[in-house]
């Protein structure tokens, strides 16, 4: 009797509580929580950039909070330095060459992997992506030793080859991703309408996989432009990339020039991404 009574009394309370919590407010809290998490992630991602910018604009040769003023002296020093300018030019040169070779090789490889009935496709894909698993410094060291063994010195193409090795996986991955969703019947339709395989590739396949290839190319450019571990062993005296030059500079002169160089790098990466977007177009026609 008593248990029955207590049951019937407690049940509505529990139901009430549940009904108050679930539908309205929880969804509200959820929204705020979602927003808060997103803001936190954004801050987390952008804070380092903000610190770099503050460091670059700070007139004193060390970071100071609050900053004591705004000055472009580190930018002046950066742009006036022959070493830095040479390194910047060389880094751009290497990044462009790397982007070209990684994109050409990576996209072709992805096409072959997605299309050709190659035996052991999975193994080949794994091999192509493996430079991502290996610490890049080992890749650099191994290449360095190979070049030494072959007695070729440390040529620019050797550096580009090293960068290509570590950027290839990005192009292969992004291209495979678009190819995965690629409707083969579009190519058949083109052939049916009289397009030779080569024309089919340029008229249909390439424009449609372009977003993936381009995304890979942008990754390749940025990864190469920022590359440090692979370059470390492969740069030759007088031809050092910007990250290597910055690292060496850091050992002797730790001042805002580093910050200025970083800001310039970030801006350049931005310009490249936006430039590629505007000229070649990043917009995707295919649903990914």
């Amino acid at each position, binding site marked *: 009797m008593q248990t029955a009574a207590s049951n019937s009394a407690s049940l509505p309370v529990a139901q009430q509580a549940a009904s108050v919590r679930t539908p309205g407010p929880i969804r509200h809290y959820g929204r705020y929580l979602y927003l808060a998490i997103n803001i936190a992630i954004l801050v987390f991602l952008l804070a380092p950039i903000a610190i770099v910018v503050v460091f670059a604009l700070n007139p004193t040769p060390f970071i100071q909070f609050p900053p004591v003023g705004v000055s472009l002296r580190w930018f002046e020093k950066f742009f006036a330095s022959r070493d830095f300018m040479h390194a910047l030019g060389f880094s751009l040169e290497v990044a462009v060459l790397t982007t070209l070779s990684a994109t050409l090789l990576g996209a072709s490889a992805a096409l072959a992997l997605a299309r050709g009935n190659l035996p052991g496709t999975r193994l080949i894909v794994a091999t192509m992506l493996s430079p991502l698993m290996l610490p890049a410094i080992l890749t650099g060291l191994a290449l360095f030793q190979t070049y030494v063994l072959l007695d070729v010195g440390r040529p620019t193409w050797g550096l580009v080859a090293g960068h290509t090795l570590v950027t290839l996986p990005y192009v292969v991955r992004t291209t495979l991703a678009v190819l995965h969703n690629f409707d083969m019947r*579009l190519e*058949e339709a083109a*052939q*049916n*309408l*009289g397009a030779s395989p080569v024309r*089919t590739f340029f008229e249909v396949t390439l424009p449609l996989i372009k977003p993936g290839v381009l995304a890979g190319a942008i990754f390749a450019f940025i990864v190469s432009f920022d590359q440090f571990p692979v370059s470390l062993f492969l740069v030759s005296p007088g031809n050092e990339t910007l990250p290597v030059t910055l690292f060496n500079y850091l050992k002797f002169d730790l001042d805002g020039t580093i910050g200025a160089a970083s800001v310039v790098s970030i801006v350049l990466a931005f310009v490249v991404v936006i430039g590629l977007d505007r000229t070649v177009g990043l917009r995707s*026609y295919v649903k990914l």
Partner: protein
Amino acid sequence: MSASIEIAGVSKVYDGGVRAVDAVAMDIRQGEFFSLLGPSGCGKTTTLRMIAGFETPSSGAIRVDGADITHVPAHKRDMGMVFQNYALFPHRTVAENVAFGLRMRGLDKATITAKVKAALAMVELSGLEDRRPAQLSGGQQQRVALARAIVIAPRVLLCDEPLGALDKKLRQQMQFELKQLQKKLGLTLVFVTHDQEEALAMSDRIAVMNGGRVEQVGTPTEIYNQPTTRFVADFIGDTNIFRGERTTTSTVASALDVGKGLILALPPTEGQGTGVLSVALRPEKIRLITRTDAATAAGSSAHGIVENTNFLGGAVLYRVTLESAHRVLVQQPNAGTSRLFVPGDGVTLEWTPADLVVLKD
């Protein structure tokens, strides 16, 4: 312009060992609307793709106007194709899609523009030139695909379930228009469908396929009225199939004993014989009357009870259980004058022995 196609003993075995097409032989005449009909997986698409040049036959040959094209690459076959999902180029406008084949043929700009315009007018899409495929409805996309295929004046037009994705109303309209267009242009058209009504409505001739083989080739009436195999009879429309031992009774010289006391008189064309046989009897060939105990014709009538009714509008479909326990479909036109039977009604079924179709197994 249009060509004839000869498929001579073509088989296709895929890598995994699947025999998708098995010794198919058929002649498609010039200017003919020819359908490949059969259930999913029977090899229709594979056959069509071999004609288009996307697959190479494992054996056999394909000839167009007598010339062997078995190993001619797809882009040199001069055939138009409408794909099941249309396969429109998403990165090109409607006009560019239609112009594609013309560009590949190296025509000059002015000619291309004129032909694209005419083709789009033909499929009633004028004014949509600059849209992209994603901005069109399914029906419009279908028309673009059609315009793109016919604008090159192909020797053969191949369509793989081109109307499958459309809703029923639109499908019927497009069926009509496609047929009109085919007639007007005198196109040789190979049409793949799993929809028997569509095939019956549109085709000059139909090849019914099953398990990679052709079961029967014929005009829609031949296929419907004289199915030669049990599969065709069963697949095309509703039908009643009986199987039994050949026999002779006192009244009927050539009859079939289908068991439980039901004896069917075979058509007069069928001579006396022995052995097992299947026959088909279309539901609409059976007359249904209120049960009468008056003498009924031996071998061409039976008594039964209505089990359920299915009102179709223009007709009524009854499921009747015979005294022999056979269940039979009967279709009666709905003239709107007489009372319809209801479940439980006792009925008598009558038919003409000549309407029985003897089937090969």
